[in-house]
């Protein structure tokens, strides 16, 4: 019984919490992270086995907990199994990484107990089969991750991030709660099975959709609910940041799919357009912000916003196709979205782990104070490079495969009958293409500035390679990125059952295709074969190199950089993150962030440096969040005097209340 086994493992995680509290920090670190990696790995293995059919699907279980009259219902169906795999692959390697990384934590006691709790929460959400368990696990996940966000509590910025995060999380939970309230109906049947039977009226369904979008979106980082992401994800310890970006956002995606594709049952055409519009906007805004920022971990968090946008765009497409009963197309879009979820889980975790390694080695997150790290931490640099290439959707790595599938799905969308969709989809395609290209730029910057060139600070110069565990975690993820990139067929087939579960249709089996190439849509016959591409590239590269070395030997002389004849030894003259971003900032930053550049030139003869100051203002924050906070404090100020009235005035309040009620009564009678 896979479900039982998984629940036992989760129970193990929960017990690990106690170990985290009890054990001394040194041994606690090894035990907690060791156990966490074991449990996560086991869950991933079981769920994977379920997904590829080695284990029976769809088994359910009810524990005597949760809502008394309902019990705690759990179910393991393909959808949940798939997301468990996504979650626990990240969790597994992040935990291994943490065994070494954790050594540098000053207050490990603030992390060790919450880390396994966080994992447990994330694992419970996909298994939940009734509303209470779902929200319980959901909140547990939020709470534990919040504790991890504020674990470095001595930096005020982290505390602000914690507040913002927890409030946004509560907002999301409330939205989901209300959505479930509508789903359950007045009868209050909170079991998912009951919800599926109870069909909502169109209006209610629309309401549910909106609430689900708010709830899941606020956790996933869907624009405009993404503001907490770049604050909270970097604040946590790096392996946790990796999980929050790589795994937790996927849990939110799962919640969205579960509610909108599975539980509601019906859907309206405009839902898809809304999702796609938000997704595309998120992809663009996220990657632009990533291009502008200087903090390595914030860059990664913003790129998460982009990828989430990408995933949601795919989901929207799938929904649109499903509405019009275009089974194959819907399956294609859904597979693309799910595969991208898996990929993002892999390379975003990898990148955060890399950023953590840099942070450990140098104590710096600001890329403008780094540089030349590749000479001192070559292995980390290699892993980070693979991750960066993968996330920039470069063949033959995995990021490209999901992007390619999404484009293939978009190319099928002229079959859609609804005019609105026909207008939105190509625009979305353009936005996605643009954001993909920008991602390339962003990650050239994110890798090039810190790792290449010459060190810009002493810390960067003193850097040293990280420990074996950290490297192991990163290399495993990098290997997976490559594997998914060159053998996508198997993974897409593995995702098949999930797609069938929510779409009802499935792609033709890919593993059977000639030369293991990818032919999602036989009658179009478009195909891609990562294996071949990598083979070709290696062959040609080796061939070329061989021939060249044969012709010209390996003569090589080290010298100063030429730099058009006037090299400057000072590393400040290198291009920095800020200057690298300048062209894109000038071109696109303006409409998104109201960028203002001011240059202060010293008067002629003055030898002082000229300064350029750049200001970014996030319109979403200014026009949505700031007014809200202002409103709350305004009301609070207006009400506050009620604390300082005289007794006589309080009596007056009682008196008026009494008179009012009596009047009501007199009129009512």
């Amino acid at each position, binding site marked *: 019984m896979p479900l039982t086994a998984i629940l036992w493992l989760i129970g193990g995680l929960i017990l690990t919490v106690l170990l985290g509290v009890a054990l001394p920090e040194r041994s606690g670190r090894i035990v907690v992270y060791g156990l966490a990696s074991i449990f996560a790995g086991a869950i991933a293995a079981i769920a994977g086995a379920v997904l590829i059919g080695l284990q029976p699907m769809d088994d359910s279980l009810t524990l005597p907990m949760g809502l008394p009259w309902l019990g705690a219902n759990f179910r393991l169906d393909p959808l949940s199994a798939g997301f468990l795999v996504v979650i626990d692959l990240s969790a597994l390697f992040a935990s291994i990484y943490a065994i070494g990384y954790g050594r540098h934590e000053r207050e490990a006691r603030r992390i060790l107990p919450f880390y396994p709790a966080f994992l447990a929460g994330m694992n419970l959400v996909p298994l939940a089969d009734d509303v209470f368990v779902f929200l319980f696990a959901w909140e547990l996940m939020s709470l534990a991750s919040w504790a991890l966000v504020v674990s470095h509590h001595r930096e005020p910025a982290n505390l602000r991030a914690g507040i913002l995060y927890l409030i946004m999380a509560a907002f999301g939970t409330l939205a989901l709660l209300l959505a479930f309230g509508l789903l359950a109906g007045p009868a209050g049947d909170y079991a998912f099975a009951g919800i599926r039977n109870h069909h909502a009226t169109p209006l209610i369904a629309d309401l549910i959709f909106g609430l689900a979008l708010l709830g899941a979106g606020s956790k996933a980082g869907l624009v405009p609910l993404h503001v907490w992401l770049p604050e909270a994800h970097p604040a946590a310890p790096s392996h946790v940041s990796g999980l929050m970006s790589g795994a937790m956002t996927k849990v939110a995606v799962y919640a969205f799919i579960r509610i909108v594709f599975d539980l509601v049952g019906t859907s309206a055409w405009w839902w898809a357009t809304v999702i796609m519009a938000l997704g595309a906007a998120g992809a663009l805004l996220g990657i632009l912000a990533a291009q502008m920022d200087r903090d390595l971990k914030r860059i990664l968090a913003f790129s998460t916003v982009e990828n989430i946008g990408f995933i949601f765009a795919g989901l929207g497409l799938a929904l649109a196709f499903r509405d019009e009963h275009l089974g194959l197309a819907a399956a294609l879009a859904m597979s693309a979205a799910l595969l991208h979820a898996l990929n993002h889980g892999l390379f975003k975790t990898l990148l955060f782990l890399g950023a953590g390694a840099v942070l450990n080695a140098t104590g710096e997150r600001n890329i403008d104070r780094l540089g030349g790290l590749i000479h001192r931490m070559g292995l980390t640099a290699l892993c980070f490079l693979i991750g960066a290439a993968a996330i920039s959707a470069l*063949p033959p790595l995995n990021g*490209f495969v999901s992007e*390619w599938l999404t484009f293939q799905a978009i190319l099928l969308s002229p079959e859609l009958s609804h005019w609105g969709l026909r207008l939105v989809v190509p625009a979305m*395609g353009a936005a996605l293409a643009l954001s993909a290209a*920008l991602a390339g730029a962003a990650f050239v910057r994110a890798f090039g500035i810190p790792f290449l060139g010459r060190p810009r600070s002493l810390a960067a110069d003193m850097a040293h390679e990280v420990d074996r565990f950290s490297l192991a975690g990163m290399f495993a993820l990098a290997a997976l990125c490559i594997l998914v990139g060159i053998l996508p067929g198997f993974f897409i087939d593995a995702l098949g059952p999930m797609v069938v579960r929510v779409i009802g249709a499935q792609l033709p089996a890919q593993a059977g295709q000639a030369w293991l190439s990818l032919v999602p849509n036989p009658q179009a016959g478009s195909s891609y074969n990562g294996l071949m591409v990598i083979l070709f590239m290696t062959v*040609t590269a080796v061939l070329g190199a061989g021939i060249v070395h044969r012709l010209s030997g390996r003569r090589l002389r080290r010298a100063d950089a030429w730099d*058009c004849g006037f090299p400057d030894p000072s590393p400040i003259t290198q291009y920095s993150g800020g200057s690298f971003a300048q062209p894109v900032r000038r*071109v696109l930053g303006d409409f998104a962030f109201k960028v203002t550049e001011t240059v202060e030139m010293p008067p002629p003869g003055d030898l002082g440096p000229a300064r350029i100051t750049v200001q970014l203002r996030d319109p979403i924050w200014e026009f949505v969040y700031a007014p809200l906070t202002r409103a709350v404090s305004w009301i609070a100020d207006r009400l506050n005097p009620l604390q300082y009235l005289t007794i006589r005035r309080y009596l007056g309040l009682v008196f008026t209340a009494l008179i009012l009620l009596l009047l009501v009564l007199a009129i009512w009678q």
Partner: protein
Amino acid sequence: MAIVPALMVQGGQMLLVLLLAPLLTGFVRKLKALLLRRRGPSLIQPYRDLLRLLKKEVVLAGSASSVFRSAPYVIFAAVWVAAALVPTFATGLMFSWSADLIAIVALLGTARFMLALAGLDVGTSFGGIGSSREMMIASLAEPAMIMSVFTLSLVAQTTQLSDIARFMLEHNVGLRVSLAMALVALLMVAIAENARVPIDNPATHLELTMVHEAMVLEYSGRHLAMIELGSALKLLLYVSLIGCVFLPWGIARADDAPGAYLLGLLLYVGKLGAGGTLLAVFETSIAKMRVFRVPEFLGAALMLALLAALLLFVSKSF
């Protein structure tokens, strides 16, 4: 069709592009010189340059890392593989299914990614200028390219390049608004991607105006040779891409008679010549534009391509 001839065609094509690439570059240079009333270098000058570079030793900047050293080979490999998959004189290449048009665009993206990293690697100011501008240009050019790819594949019902070519060849596509727009967009992208005037000037080393040259500034010897060959290949790729899609006539199809192949070959060389001529004329008749006008140029391309795709989405008949 049988394996052996298929392999021959595939291999022949790969060799062909490799051999013709420098020639095309040389041809364009020569033509530009003639148009400017200069004698100009001989057609085979690029081959000479490559050999000379190969003979020279590599002078490597002290701060250069393995990225810098491996980049030329990766770039070369990526571009070559991409070029190998573009039908030149024959469709139905043996390995054409291993990458479709989107993948080809992405392969060029890989090459660009490595090149930009190489530009940053030495840690000079010029390398940085080059990379950042290159990425800015690319981040507009690539979506434009993708959108015109969309247009093509919406017409041809596939993203498989050789299938698109065959479709263009066999079906009477006729003159279509969308295709015209896509063509224009594609041309603009091609100019940008190959660092030609007015986006960039391949001949200049005037620091502040260069983009591509600034990235490869630190390269020397065999590395530079690979880079040069790579960019030559890229130019050839674009010309033959446009050729095989928009003027596919004469491309030999699978299981055609050898004669057809020969004809295709001749026509292909002709197309290259025509493309080169057009490029030379265009470059000599226009001045390089400021870097920050480039986005407008490419933005126009993007809008055109998007419009083309949009038209097709709305109705197939455009």
